[in-house]
């Protein structure tokens, strides 16, 4: 062993000595610097000594820092975009979680209606039961008016010299008509108006009432908003009519008639014969009548302008006496299978029956159709629960009268209320899945790039030297 070490030391010395001898023969030419120096001109010299602030900074400095920071920025953007998308998706789902919520138009204010030369009409039609869709129809020529929705406490601008008559009719579905009548009266009085006309027909649960109220013009929209809150808006119609021209004409005619009246009065005073007096008197009577008529028309217009008219129709929900309730509901859900299981639990929980259940696939979308039977007493509860499973696309209910004896789970008879349920897979499920996959792939790719950049800088990707 010792001999072997000595041998190696000897050979090492020999090699060292051998190479030392080679060094004398391996030299560059004397002109090496003169050849090198001109090339230095072309090279960029970093005259700034490198600052050595710390190991971390040195490690980060340069392309590594750019790569890491840009990658982080991209990841951050992806995360933020994904979060925003998910948030918006969730909020959209939350908005639809209460299918009975009325659309914003039905709840909101009509906003300002500035008067124009042509009548401006706003129609808001709201489906009685679904509460999902609302259509708005606007009519009116350009320049005739301006409609802005969603402005709380908006007031019709009192344009100087402009005379505008505002009118509206609202049809409301309310639980109790008599209570609603009182509430309408209160609204009118609180806003400085009055009840102009009121009529009611029908018996209990089938009551209907029409009330015409007058409110000051600047309280018109406030009144409409307050009326909308009394029940479900079935129909709403608001219009404004600019009567400025008519008012000016009437005023001019009145002035003219009054001047004529004054001149006739003067002539009458100067009349010397009875026949003249009679003739003038007749003309004067006509003119006075005309003045009064014109004054009446002007007063009416002023009254109409000053006090807006709102006709309120109050109805109770349409009920079919003697029939058990039934409903049809079409819900879009994120996962049909999971929802089916939930529906089964729900129906079993209220001692109901699933008559039939059909699952089908169409264009990659799963859908299920169910026929359910539940007790009348649980009908509303089941319908509400079903609506919460997803986004209700369509919902119709036919309920029995309250006077009818409702079946309860304790009854011996089978469940009487039928529900036809359709569950459809939402498009958003696949969109969300695809986006999640893309975002995840992007993040993984970026991490990979970072790792490769770092590995490349560290020299780990170079081929082993041969």
């Amino acid at each position: 062993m010792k001999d072997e070490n000595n041998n190696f030391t000897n050979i090492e010395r020999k090699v060292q000595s051998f190479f030392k001898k080679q060094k004398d023969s391996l030299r560059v030419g004397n002109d090496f610097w003169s050849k090198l120096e001109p090339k230095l001109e072309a090279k960029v010299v970093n005259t700034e000594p490198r600052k050595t602030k710390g190991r971390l900074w040195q490690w980060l400095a340069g392309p590594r820092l750019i790569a890491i920071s840009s990658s982080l920025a991209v990841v951050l953007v992806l995360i933020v975009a994904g979060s925003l998308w998910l948030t918006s998706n969730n909020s959209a789902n939350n908005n639809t979680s209460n299918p009975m919520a009325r659309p914003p138009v039905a709840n909101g204010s009509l906003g300002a209606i500035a008067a124009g030369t042509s009548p401006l009409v706003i129609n808001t039609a709201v489906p009685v039961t679904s509460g999902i869709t609302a259509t708005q129809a606007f009519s009116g020529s350009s320049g005739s008016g301006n409609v802005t929705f969603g402005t709380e406490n908006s007031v019709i601008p009192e344009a100087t010299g402009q005379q505008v008559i505002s009118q509206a009719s609202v049809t409301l579905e309310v639980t109790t008509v008599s209570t609603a009548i009182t509430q309408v009266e209160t609204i009118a009085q609180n806003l400085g108006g009055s009840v102009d006309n009121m009529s009611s027909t029908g018996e209990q649960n089938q009551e209907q009432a029409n009330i015409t109220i007058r409110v000051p013009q600047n309280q018109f929209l406030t009144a409409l908003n307050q009326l909308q809150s009394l029940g479900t808006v079935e129909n709403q119609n608001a219009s404004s009519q600019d009567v400025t021209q008519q008012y000016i004409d009437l005023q001019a005619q009145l002035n003219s008639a009054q001047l004529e009246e004054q001149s006739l009065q003067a002539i009458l005073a100067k009349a010397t014969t009875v026949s003249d007096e009679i003739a003038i008197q007749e003309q004067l009577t006509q003119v006075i009548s005309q003045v009064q008529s014109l004054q009446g028309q002007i007063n009416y217009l002023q009254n109409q302008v000053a006090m807006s008219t709102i006709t309120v129709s109050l109805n109770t929900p349409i009920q079919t006496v003697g029939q058990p309730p039934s409903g049809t509901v079409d819900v879009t859900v994120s996962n049909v299978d999971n929802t089916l299981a939930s529906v089964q639990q729900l129906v079993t929980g209220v001692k109901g029956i699933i008559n039939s259940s059909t699952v089908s696939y169409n264009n990659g979308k799963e859908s299920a159709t169910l026929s359910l039977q539940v007790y009348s007493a649980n009908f509303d509860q089941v319908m509400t629960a079903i609506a919460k499973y997803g986004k209700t696309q369509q919902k119709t209910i036919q309920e029995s009268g309250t006077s009818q004896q409702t079946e309860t789970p304790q009854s011996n008879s089978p469940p009487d209320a039928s529900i036809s349920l359709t569950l459809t897979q939402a498009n958003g499920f696949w969109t969300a899945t695809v986006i999640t996959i893309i975002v995840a792939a992007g993040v993984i790719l970026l991490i990979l790039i970072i790792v490769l950049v770092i590995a490349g800088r560290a020299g780990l990707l170079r081929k082993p030297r041969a």
Partner: protein
Amino acid sequence: MTEKIALTEDEIMLRCQTGDREAFRALVEKYQNMLYGTAYLMTGNRMVAEDQVQETFLSVWKSIGTFRAGRPLKPWLVRILVNKVLSYQRANAKTMLSLDTDLVADTAGDDPLKGIEQRDQLQNVLRNLPLEQRQVVLLRYFAELSLIETATVLGRSQGTIKSQIHRALEHLKDLIEDDNGK
């Protein structure tokens, strides 16, 4: 008239980093032959070796600002050179002349090499070493780098370098003895 600079390596580097060409010249003159010899022994071609040494110094001049004071300079230079030579060899793998052929052919022209016998012996010794061992031997005994420095320059572990040196010495022992015996 050039002024002789008698400065430490760190001082030379600091001056170079401020763009002092005379300091850089001193640096070049100090290491040019060592680098040239290493390149020559790796490539076996004078022209290529000189070109690669020039490229090495140009790279050093260009990136001198990135050199951190206190670090050993020689391994840094050797590493740059070895990378240059390996890149060159990879790029010209097909046209590269073999070590032994070129060493023999290199006797033409104004070859300043002295002692044809020594060179032949060197040629014989080196050409028979496996490439990896040849590199290790060159850096360790010609460029006179330490074990750690050799390992760093070649990107191998110290253990690998040790075992390669061991095997190379064993190989060289036989080769030199054989050569001397002839």
